[in-house]
């Protein structure tokens, strides 16, 4: 038996090398050299289409011993290789993939929001009233936290004041937040229940100089902080548990979570820091802060996507190179000057911290690129794989400069599914420029690594949806191949957090983080990729999730 050995592939740059090696190794079983004779496997997935992802190899089976992948091969060679196999899963000809990465996630916020009342579908105060009354009935004597209110969707076109909310509920505190978290409203009970600093800016007053219950800017920030910091860790952990269960059902085995900072709560980041080793999947914390000292003290190798360099297209504050179509006097906002961002990044480079900057519009991307160029010039510290988050409206020349800087793009293809294409939100905001959003094809062709994510709960959890959205991009020239899209959610995700040597592909010796799908994702019609479901999720050799669709057998000898 010929044994093929090579270093785990390094994402984009080494995929080509791996491909070459892969050709020579086609149809050859891959086993550890020293264990070529007889050995045991704790788990065997057979009859699958096991995509290596690092190269084009498609194995028939993959074996796991302990936490790691102990063999990959074709046909029934495992019978000769393993003298004992404890457990066997028949993949029924479906795809087996490395465990998915979701590279930009808000774990705690998703959890807390999942326990909140959802007002995103409300179109009038009456709708809000019905939902709050129902919630009050379901959870009597519990404060009500309602999220996702979009005032432009309401018939009244404004936020409900406390007197309006009092009519819906006056026996528990009610807190309503806008979909972008920039505005809050409290009923009168809420005003008296939560500690409100009335001397601060952002408190809306009525004609009698009394608070209307609507809080913006500084007052909203402090109110959020006061409320969120009083949410107990037990409640937070309960909320996270539900989200992680959902993530596991979608095949996610590693999450890069952005916690704390602007409009979030630092207690979220502290909780993840303290408990991340207790979660069933791997969680990498990006502490959203500009406090480099704090991050260094926590010995974190990276700093989160706060600062936001600009806003969002939905809120019309992403920093564009042209005016918004539906707001012609507005080209969006930059929250940093060049000098400030230069200074911040130089400090991060000096401290060898990986950064992730939230950039959406062309001007924000430009600001970030210039700051990275400056910081690299000043410090000479390369190889930190700094990330740009979202990068929705990047130009060709910016992509090239990003490649030169070794930047990784962290993108959310599902944005295109939800908002891209003719007649959708992107077009409403930026007109014909919607054709330029999320140019995945061009970015990959220019050699920039893209890691994929949901930015839960901005879009729903589910890498299959992300892969679908990348393959079916509404603008045809931006579409990418299935395997490229899969890499975004596997190997490239690992690359973005320096984990590609131990995770992200099905290769010998890597951690046994794997997913079995209920279909062959490479063969289903591309319009149906989003409907492909996860049948089994395996983390470090342990089955975390398994449907009954597949055959699961326990055997001492297969």
């Amino acid at each position, binding site marked *: 038996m010929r044994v093929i050995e090579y270093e785990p592939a390094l994402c984009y740059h080494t995929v080509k090398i791996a491909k070459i090696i892969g050709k020579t190794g086609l149809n050859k079983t891959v086993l550890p050299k020293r264990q070529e004779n007889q050995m045991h496997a704790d788990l065997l997935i057979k009859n699958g289409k096991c995509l290596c992802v690092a190269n084009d190899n498609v194995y028939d089976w993959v074996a796991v011993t302990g936490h790691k992948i102990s063999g990959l091969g074709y046909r029934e060679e495992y019978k000769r290789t393993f003298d004992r196999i404890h457990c066997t899963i028949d993949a029924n000809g479906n795809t087996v993939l490395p465990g998915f990465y979701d590279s930009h996630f808000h774990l705690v916020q998703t959890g807390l929001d999942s326990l909140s009342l959802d007002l995103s579908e409300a179109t009038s105060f009456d709708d809000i009233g019905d939902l709050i009354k129902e919630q009050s009935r379901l959870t009597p004597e519990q404060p009500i936290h309602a999220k996702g209110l979009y005032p432009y969707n309401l018939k009244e076109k404004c936020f409900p004041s406390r007197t309006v909310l*009092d009519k819906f509920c*006056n*026996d528990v505190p009610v807190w309503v937040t806008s979909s972008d978290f920039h505005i809050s409203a409290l009923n*009168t*009970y809420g*005003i*008296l*229940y939560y*500690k*409100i*600093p*009335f*001397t*601060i*800016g952002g408190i809306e007053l009525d004609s009698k100089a*009394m*608070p209307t219950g609507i809080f913006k*800017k*500084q007052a909203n*920030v*402090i109110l959020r*902080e006061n409320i969120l910091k009083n949410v107990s860790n037990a409640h937070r952990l309960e909320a996270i548990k539900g989200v992680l269960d959902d993530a596991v059902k979608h095949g996610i085995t590693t999450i890069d979570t952005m916690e*704390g*900072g*602007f409009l979030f709560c*630092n207690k979220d980041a502290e909780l993840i820091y303290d408990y991340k080793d207790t979660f069933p999947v791997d969680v990498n914390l990006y502490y*959203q*802060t*500009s*406090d480099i*000292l*704090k991050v260094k003290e926590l010995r974190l190798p990276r700093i989160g996507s*706060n*600062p*936001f360099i600009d806003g969002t297209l939905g809120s019309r504050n992403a920093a564009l190179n042209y005016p918004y179509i539906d707001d012609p006097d507005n080209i969006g906002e930059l*929250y*940093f*000057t060049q000098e*400030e961002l230069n200074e911040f990044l*130089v400090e991060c480079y000096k401290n060898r911290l990986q950064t992730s900057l939230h950039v959406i519009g062309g001007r924000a991307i430009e600001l970030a690129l210039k700051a990275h160029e*400056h910081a690299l*010039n*000043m410090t*000479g510290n390369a190889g930190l794989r700094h990330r740009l988050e979202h990068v929705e409206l990047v130009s060709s020349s910016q992509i090239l400069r990003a490649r030169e800087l070794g930047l990784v793009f962290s993108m959310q293809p599902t944005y295109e599914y939800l908002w891209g294409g003719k007649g959708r939100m992107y077009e409403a905001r930026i007109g014909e420029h919607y054709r330029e959003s999320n140019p995945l094809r061009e970015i990959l062709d220019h050699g920039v690594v893209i890691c994929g994510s949901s930015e839960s709960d901005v879009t729903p959890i589910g890498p299959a949806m992300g892969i679908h959205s990348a393959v079916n991009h509404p603008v045809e020239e931006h579409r990418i191949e299935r395997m490229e899209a899969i890499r975004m959610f596997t190997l490239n995700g690992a690359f973005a957090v320096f984990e590609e040597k131990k995770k992200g592909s099905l290769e010998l010796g890597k951690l046994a983080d794997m997913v079995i799908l209920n279909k062959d994702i490479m063969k289903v019609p591309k319009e149906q990729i989003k409907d492909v479901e996860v049948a089994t999720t395996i983390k470090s050799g342990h089955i975390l999730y398994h449907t009954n669709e597949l055959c699961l057998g326990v055997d001492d000898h297969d």
Partner: protein
Amino acid sequence: MTELKINLMGRVEFKYGEKNIEHKLSNKGIALISLLMLHMKNGVSRERLISYLWADSDEEAAKYNLRYNLWNIKKVIPTDEKGQDFILANKDYCRLNQNYFFESDILQLMSFENQETERSIEELGHCKQLFRGDFLEGVYLKNCDEFNEKIILERIVYQNKYVKLLKAIAEKYETGSQFEECIQILSELAGMEPYNEGIIQSKLNAYIQLGQWSDAIACYKKFEASLRSDLNVSPSQKLKLVYNKLLGKPQISTQKASGSSGFKRQKLDIEVQCAENIDYFCIADLIRKIILRGDRKYIFQFNKCYLEDLNFIQLEVGIGYERLHGEKCSLRTWLPDVRIADACIRFILYVNDIYDLHVSLKNADKIDQASSQIIQYLKRLKIADLLIQES
């Protein structure tokens, strides 16, 4: 001795002698006393009290509830030693008995109004202690909209009073040069108004007065981080200017004493190569390594005329300058030795302003003549924290 003490700021507290009695009063009973206390002088009509507290009841039930609560209060708070009742009520009006001897935080605060500037620090300090929290903390009465409005209004009023009081105390401490106490009060104020630049500026000034430069810098950095983290904005240019001045003073100082202000000068250890018969080789190597390892932003703020002279012997100067500032650094075709030597000496002294510069000469016996003379000159200056030795 006062038997009855009533605190309405923070968690409501009714003490009779040593015993807490608030639990014997209903929420509406507490609300009733609070309303009467806010209208200590004239009292409140029964009709008004009913509209505050029993607006949702029919007239008879409301009247009964008021009577019952008055009776209950009378039962819980006994007559004083002169046999006087705490509440005086007739057919139409109710009011607190001004002759009944009791203490209340609200009444003390009312008597304190608008006299901050005339009061001593001790008096202001006593007043500060009365602010144990928000007005009627934890109190909310369902279906008593008017009363709840009243609580909100009073909270706004007293929060503003508290801020005004703290500002007055800080000002008095500042005037009396009691900067440590001033900082303490300003920190409390910053807790209430975390994004108020005026408070931070006053704090920076107080630290500067105390010579606590590092604390001042830490204070600014913390404020800057919280502005960025919470509001995603930067401090104003005005505050940045204060900070830049703050940085400028101790860091540019060449005095050893600057260390005592809390600043830690960074050490820059540099080993330079020597080569015989190549003019300025050693000093050019030193300049190159300083540029590579030092803070370029600081280095390239050095006078451009001197940088252009240095560019004559070390091209990294021009390259680095262009990268940072985006403009050309001239390259001379010829320079007299005296200009080169002068630029080198000034440059090294400039760098030594912020770094403890430790230079080791490798193969010192092979040092070129021009570099040797510059090194000897620097050694003769005996500058603090500049160490040049043979390795």
